[in-house]
């Protein structure tokens, strides 16, 4: 996913002389070395200083550039949130905050680096759009689309290599979800590579309960959110599970729950997310997923409960 981002930025910059990268000493972690080599005057290295970097990015954007502000999510947008709020969002400038190493997926690095609050921090800001790609393929598509939006955006990336589950034929549109797999009994929504857990759960169900099918929806456009696709699916299934590698508070599940409370459709709803806890180190991220109740087994148990 990170590699796909780095490659896409490098390719986009060839045709877009206004595309800049503002880095905070994590060039290699975000696979930006090629960009930095090919476009040295457009690669702005701010060092370990996230607050300055965010406002420098805003100033560059004010001069007409499209700026990708790249770091780990636990630093940017975490350390520099107030700068993003004022200098980027309130001033409504063309800066894309790229937060890598989001979620428990950050694994070995432990609690400080497993950013579980980024979606909450970013989605609450006026003018900010929030995106979390499913896999490397969708990372390329989203990066290309937001590079042309001229608005503030947040792009959430993860650390490990993850399976490709998106359809190469599908295009990405801001504000649109896509149905990854059609089903009739339970709607599963989420974003990012954790949705692979839903496919794993479906495989197990196929042996255990062959009549049960899951409808899996990729909400990679978290804000603006395509509520109508979720609503249409839930009208059919009457059951909704939201799974996310993020805190429950301020996550996608809460946004969707709030929308359903003001809708006439009231599905059975269960939200699987990290519940008011910090993460911890592990070499195997699936151990973490199981421990925090967002892995395949938790999902299977939840499906059985909701049916």
């Amino acid at each position: 996913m990170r590699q796909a981002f780095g490659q896409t930025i490098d390719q986009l910059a060839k045709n877009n002389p206004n595309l800049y990268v503002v880095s905070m000493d994590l060039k290699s972690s975000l696979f930006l070395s090629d960009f930095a080599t090919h476009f040295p005057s457009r690669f702005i290295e701010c060092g370990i200083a996230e607050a300055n970097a965010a406002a420098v990015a805003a100033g560059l954007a004010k001069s007409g550039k499209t700026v990708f502000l790249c770091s780990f999510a636990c630093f940017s947008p975490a350390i520099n949130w107030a700068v993003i709020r004022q200098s980027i969002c309130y001033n409504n400038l063309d800066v894309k905050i790229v937060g890598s190493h989001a979620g428990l997926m950050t694994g070995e690095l432990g609690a400080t680096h497993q950013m579980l609050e980024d979606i909450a921090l970013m989605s609450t800001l006026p003018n900010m759009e929030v995106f979390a790609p499913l896999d490397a393929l969708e990372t390329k598509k989203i990066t290309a689309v937001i590079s042309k939006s001229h608005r503030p955006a947040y792009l959430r990336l993860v650390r490990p290599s993850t399976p490709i589950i998106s359809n190469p034929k599908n295009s990405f549109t801001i504000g649109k979800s896509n149905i990854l797999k059609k089903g009739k009994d339970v709607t599963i929504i989420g974003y990012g590579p954790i949705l692979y857990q839903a496919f794993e759960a479906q495989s197990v169900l196929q042996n255990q309960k062959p009549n049960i099918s899951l409808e899996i929806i990729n909400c990679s456009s978290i804000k603006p959110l395509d509520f109508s696709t979720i609503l249409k699916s839930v009208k059919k299934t009457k059951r909704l599970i939201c799974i996310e590698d993020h805190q429950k508070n301020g996550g996608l599940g809460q946004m969707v729950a709030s929308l359903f409370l003001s809708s006439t459709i009231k599905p059975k709803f269960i939200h699987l997310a990290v519940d008011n806890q910090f993460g911890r180190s592990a070499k195997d991220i699936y151990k973490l997923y199981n421990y925090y109740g967002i892995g395949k087994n938790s999902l299977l148990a939840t499906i059985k409960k909701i049916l």
Partner: protein
Amino acid sequence: MLNRFHPFSKISHQLRLDLLDMIYHSGSGHIGGSLSSLDILISLYHSDIFDFKKDHFVLSAGHLACALYTVLASKKYFSKDLLKTYTDFDSILQGHISKDVPGVEYSSGSLGQGLSFAAGLALGDPRHTTVCLTTDGEHQEGQIWESVMFAKKYKLGNLVNIVDCNGLQIDGTVQDIMPLNNLAAKYVQFGWTVTTVDGHNFFQLIKALKQAKNSDYPNCIIAKTVLGKGISFMENNYKYHDVKNLDEKIYLAAKKELL
């Protein structure tokens, strides 16, 4: 030369009255810092050193909005009548500066961000000068020093930071709350060109601004100012950092001194 002989001293006098009226009309505003920064802003906008249709001005200390509003109105960016609407519900003149106001490029209010923004703008538009106005108290924000390092690294000779040094902040003196000690020496150490001026002396201010334009290094102008300048009972009194419910008695007393 004595400041009173400078043609801008008349403008300064008139804008102090405008500023007082505006704040009295609203009932509240950051009067102390606005009066300390006013002559800096007049030097920027009423001289022909910069053309702010092309050059950039970034007010990092967004609470000094009142001073900038009066200066922008005096330069016909908008009608002077608009000043009466300051802080009204449907007015573009908010308590802190907003880019909705004609002539304003950056909305601010949270201290410490504007110099970074100005540095980004100076880097992105190397053919023009970006001038930023910060305050001494604002230099307690760590982000300022991040941007000071950044400007040196990227050799932003087209960046000017004017520091309104009135020595006071909302709760008292800068010296008591968090001393900056020798600010000029700090900037020199960080690789900037530094000039210290009397921030109410137009001859000194204009000379420093002319020197700062088109330099090889980022420029810092330390402007020594007086909080509440022009109204004796407000001068150097941190309690006039801002006023809430400015009553008629204080208004008339202040006006009497300015007339």
